[in-house]
């Protein structure tokens, strides 16, 4: 038996989503099981089954160092704050000059 991860997609622009896993002895059994276990109420229009051992992955420490790098976030708060300060400085300079 092998473990297969099950992904479903609705027709249209939605992406494939992971919905669960199942045990099966062959690819064909995995397909017929997935059909009756995960799509019996029409939850998806397309199905991907991926043997868990075929997934390329790593341990959590592989990505952990990237968790705290605010400078890589695109929120723009730091730049907005800097521009606000510059605007206020400009206004203060002008009113001091007049």
């Amino acid at each position: 038996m092998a473990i297969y991860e099950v992904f479903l997609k609705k027709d249209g622009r939605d992406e494939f989503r992971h919905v669960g896993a199942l045990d099966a002895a062959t690819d064909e059994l995995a397909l017929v099981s997935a059909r009756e276990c995960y799509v019996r109420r029409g939850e998806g229009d397309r199905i991907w089954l991926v043997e868990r051992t075929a997934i390329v992955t790593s341990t959590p420490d592989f990505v952990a160092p990237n968790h705290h790098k605010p400078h890589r976030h695109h929120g723009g708060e730091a730049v907005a704050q800097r521009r606000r300060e510059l605007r206020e400085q400009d206004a203060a300079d002008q009113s001091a000059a007049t």
Partner: protein
Amino acid sequence: MMGQQHTEWIGVAPFLEEDLAFASIGQDELGHAALLFEVLVGSDDQAIDELAFYREPDAWRSCHLTEMPLSDWADTLVRHWLYDAGEELRWQLFAESSLSALRDVANRALQEERFHRRHGDALLDALLKVDDARARISPSLASILPSALAMFDGVVEEAEAVAQGAIAAPFASCLPAWRDRVDERFGAQDWSTITTADGDRTTRHSDFGALLARLREVFDLDRTAVW
């Protein structure tokens, strides 16, 4: 009847995936039965319930193959395959009926039955390669083949239905095709030694009463309940 038998494996099939798959297939069969009842009495729910739950045993047209209790998984899998192989041929006959409502049901059922057979075949493809599994399936096949063969014996009033065009031909006309499928799936059988018992197709099995009681167990709790 076959749908009820299959769904009773929920929770006790050999593994979780099969548990769900087999009960789901059973649900399809119950759905097909409901569609056939609708062809007979229209969409009146009460009339359908009356046919499905409260007919006298003599008024049923089921066969021993679907009525007999099986507690062994190998027996059940073999019955599933043998029944579905026959059922496809029968739906094909119904698809040529003079009754358009019956043709519609048959065409819909044929779409779903493809997947039932794929399920049975996928299991058998995997299991028949394993010595231990094959050793369990062989005696199951030998014990169930006679009842399965009896599916093709004439059911009461079949000749009349054929004469009126409701069915394109007697079900027995499909027997050679079914035997070929069995031979192809399980190896050549010595058909001359396999005989059906009188009444397998025309009388109710001794377990029928108990099976029918289980089928309507929930319904009997409150016949007037709205679900």
